[in-house]
């Protein structure tokens, strides 16, 4: 439904990565709308009716517009667990790349 016709990814690609990438783009597109609805819901000075309407509207938005659907995945292997946030890689891929000297500023410590 939201997926782009042409793939614009330069990293490892599998369906999970494509899906996550799509979710990120959809969330970025709808973020202001979501925040506006959230503001209406939290604002106790507005009439109860509008707030409930906003709640319904927010809960009926597509699940791809939710930030909680987004998960950091490994750019080297597409894995979803054990991903180091700073390097966007799983721990194993990070180790392999770091030992090969491909990550600037990272080297194995020994003392």
């Amino acid at each position, binding site marked *: 439904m939201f997926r782009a016709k042409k793939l614009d990814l*330069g990293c490892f690609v599998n369906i999970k990565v494509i899906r*996550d990438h799509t979710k990120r783009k959809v*969330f970025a597109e709808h*973020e202001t709308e979501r925040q506006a609805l959230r*503001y209406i819901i*939290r604002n*106790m000075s507005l009439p109860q009716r509008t707030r409930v309407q906003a709640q319904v509207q927010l809960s009926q938005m597509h699940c791809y517009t939710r930030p909680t659907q987004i998960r950091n995945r490994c*750019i080297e292997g597409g894995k979803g667990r054990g991903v180091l946030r700073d390097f966007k890689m799983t721990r194993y891929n990070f180790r392999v790349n770091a030992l090969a000297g491909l990550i600037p500023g990272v080297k194995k410590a020994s003392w």
Partner: protein
Amino acid sequence: MNQVQCRIFSNTFNPQGLRLGNKVLRQRLKGPALASYYPRKMATFQDLQKAYPDWETFDEEQEDRIEKLKLLKARGKGAPKKKKTAEESKKFKGNKKRAAAVAAGLA
């Protein structure tokens, strides 16, 4: 006094401490940061070839691939021919062995 202070520092004046949801408005938008997580596609060799068609280029990977396909075809292990009609493509659906047996029985 409080009101003047709020006006000067452009804060919201809210002496009763009502919940106005301004905390949502204060939050920064994190969409662009999240959307740029994965590295985007860079120019490929084919783009280079398309941009400069009169240059002599050598795409090693592509040449290797074509050579491999040629070898496979010579050994009779290439990809099957594209079926033109729906009927043709339906012929061997399901069990391939049985389909072959049926064909042999008919012949």
